[in-house]
């Protein structure tokens, strides 16, 4: 019940295209859903995050769509660029108490390649 399922495993998009990565979760106690971007040899870096009380959040070319009833959320990268080529991880976090609940549960990752 703690799992987060992510698809696709890999994605190839042409420059200027839209990249879409999907995640699904089971645990309804999750209340915070971040997306992380990871370049080779680097740690994951927060890209954008959403709470389940909103259905969409947009920051520049990056948009999270959230469907609470389906327990699914997705990342859309508009006008994809070669510099976006990286591994993307969705994650989920349970409600935070003072000393617990803040662990992130990650999806399997999607390796995105944007061809020039």
């Amino acid at each position, binding site marked *: 019940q703690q799992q987060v399922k992510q698809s696709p495993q890999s994605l190839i998009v042409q420059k200027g295209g839209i990249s879409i990565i999907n995640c699904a979760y089971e645990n309804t106690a999750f209340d915070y859903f971040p997306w992380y971007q990871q370049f080779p*040899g680097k740690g994951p870096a927060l890209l954008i995050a959403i709470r389940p009380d909103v259905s969409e959040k947009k920051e520049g070319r990056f948009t999270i769509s959230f469907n609470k009833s389906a327990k699914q959320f997705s990342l859309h990268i508009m006008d994809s660029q070669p510099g976006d080529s990286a591994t993307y991880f969705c994650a989920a976090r349970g409600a935070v108490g003072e000393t617990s609940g803040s662990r992130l549960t990650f999806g399997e990752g999607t390796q995105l390649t944007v061809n020039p």
Partner: protein
Amino acid sequence: EPEVTQTPSHQVTQMGQEVILRCVPISNHLYFYWYRQILGQKVEFLVSFYNNEISEKSEIFDDQFSVERPDGSNFTLKIRSTKLEDSAMYFCASRVEETQYFGPGTRLLVL
């Protein structure tokens, strides 16, 4: 911009040896984490640390693992007797409000 730093970047050790991975979290953060990522797999939570004690740990974090904040800046992960399956990238993270900031990782190879 403040960032989480980790040392060493790479460590090679023999099976059964002890290793200590070091992290310097962002200075005003109070919550600290260790995660690991086996090559080609997802990032997995190991342990969280707050107010000088473990607040959560995963099933991976068994008696071979320990964490410590020996001073006001460092946060360490010790593996007492390394196994081949401990080979992974280990990430330290620190948190303020909702965001966890990850360090660049230490690649541990156990031979």
